[in-house]
């Protein structure tokens, strides 16, 4: 047990030293255009091609699993580290807000309290801790599902505002929506039966089903196929370094 603590301490010091070394390296080498521009693109290319290669390896070959494991581990580790910058930004921003007494600074205290208490219990006890469980079950989950359920209200207000027959397209949109909504519930069929002529020839739930199987399939498939081409072309541009605006500055 003691040795483990020693090792963990060593690990932390090791990473700190590594970090300092990296910073020093970063500052001394920052003029190298090869390192700044070409090498990252090479990383991107190699990573992408490896993933494509992995896809074509038969799953029985142990290499398939190894590349999969390795790459997911890499991504997990990198994004775990990356989270730190986000959290640093969150915490410093709210600290600034409190110390400079910006508008609504009191709420930032709530935010930081919530943040640090959750981290404290979460890191101390893992997911099994009683306090963490309380925070999770009685604060996190209810707020999450409440925020999700707000959607129902917005569906109503968006329908009221947007589904107006201003143009031919909008009319199609609202007609399809109304028919499908009628077809989804029993009461809809009852109301539908009061509509003269049409109701004698079409059952509303069947009509809704028909719209779904014919038009929705066609429309969604078209979007999917188009988007797939977009995906492929964009990935192609990224892998070859044609699209690299996500790097930001060129210099």
């Amino acid at each position, binding site marked *: 047990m003691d040795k483990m603590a020693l*090792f963990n301490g060593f690990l932390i010091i090791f990473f700190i030293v590594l970090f300092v070394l990296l910073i020093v*390296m*970063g500052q001394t080498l920052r003029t190298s255009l090869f390192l*700044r521009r070409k*090498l*990252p693109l090479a990383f*991107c290319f190699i*990573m992408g091609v490896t*993933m*494509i290669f992995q*896809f074509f390896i038969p799953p029985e070959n142990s290499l398939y699993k190894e590349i999969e494991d390795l*790459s997911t*581990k*890499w991504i*997990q580790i*990198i*994004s775990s*580290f990356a*989270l730190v*910058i986000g*959290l640093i930004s969150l915490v410093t921003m709210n600290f600034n807000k409190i110390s400079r007494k910006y508008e*609504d600074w009191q*709420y930032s205290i*709530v*935010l930081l309290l919530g*943040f*640090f208490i*959750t*981290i404290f219990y*979460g890191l101390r006890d893992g997911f099994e801790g009683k306090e963490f469980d*309380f925070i999770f079950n*009685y*604060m*996190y989950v*209810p707020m*999450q599902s*409440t925020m999700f359920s*707000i959607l*129902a209200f917005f*569906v109503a207000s968006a329908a009221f505002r947007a589904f107006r027959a201003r143009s031919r*397209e909008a009319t199609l*949109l609202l007609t*399809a929506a109304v028919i499908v909504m009628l077809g*989804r519930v029993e009461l809809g069929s009852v109301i539908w039966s009061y509509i003269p002529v049409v109701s004698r020839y079409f059952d509303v739930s069947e009509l809704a089903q028909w719209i779904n*199987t014919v*038009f*929705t399939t066609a*429309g*969604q498939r*078209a*979007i*999917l*196929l188009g988007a*797939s081409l977009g*995906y492929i072309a964009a*990935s192609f541009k*990224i*892998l070859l370094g044609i699209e690299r605006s*996500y*790097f930001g500055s060129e210099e």
Partner: protein
Amino acid sequence: MPLFMLGLNFKPVFETGGAVSVEGIGIWIAALLTLGIYSFLYKDNFVYKFSEYLFVGISAGYTLVLTFHKYLKPSLIEPLQEYSRDFYHIITSSSFPVVNPWMLDWQTQLIANKFGTQFQFIFWFTFKIFIFYLFPAILGLMMISRVIPSAAWLSRFPLATIVGYGSGIVIVTTLHASVLEQVKASFVSFAPLLHMKGIDWGIIAQSANDFILVFGLCCAIIYFYFSAEHKGVILGPASNFGIWVLMITFGASFGYTVMARISLLIGRFQFLLGDWMQLVK
């Protein structure tokens, strides 16, 4: 108590013995936070601000806890501990059992003199640790180097790695799962219509549906055509019809989703009216 006069019977915070009930307090907190978030629908107010900031704080904390326990620990810290311990045991030839299967394999090979010298063993060990754990960790540290502006360019390496990973996977998986599958699903057969004897309305209706589906699909694809103006004999009407198909699709899937959204709302109100106010059983 005016609430009792209204016939309301809220979840008690205290148990019958007088002890504080954790569940009772929890339900009260959850209910108040729920109402706090709903109050946003009326207008922005201090209760909502309180719930919002608390929610952001707790969920950011939860993200960190989750990342640490589910990703960082099992994929970096624990393996490093395990490997180093095993390495120490092997190098010192101690009697402690080696845990890691990979290291166990190497140990048996070392003992059987099949691995080569101890130097070679140390080399391969370092190599493996480097590839699996140190390299991604260095990339991660490079990401953190963003806090120092003059070394911020280092963060391009991890960024490029992640972007490359995503792009590589996306090319093959969309081809595999979207393009080929969706194209194949569009191969409808009109053979029943050709071989129909007499007039069978079922077959005619099926074929008509199939035709509308494929025609609508092609027109909607044409709507996405970029390198020509949507005018003329073919492109104009086709892309127009394509837009109609898309609009019907949007309307229908809007209408279709309403039910699922309301279910969520029902769930929340069942909690408020049932668990908290104990009005609904």
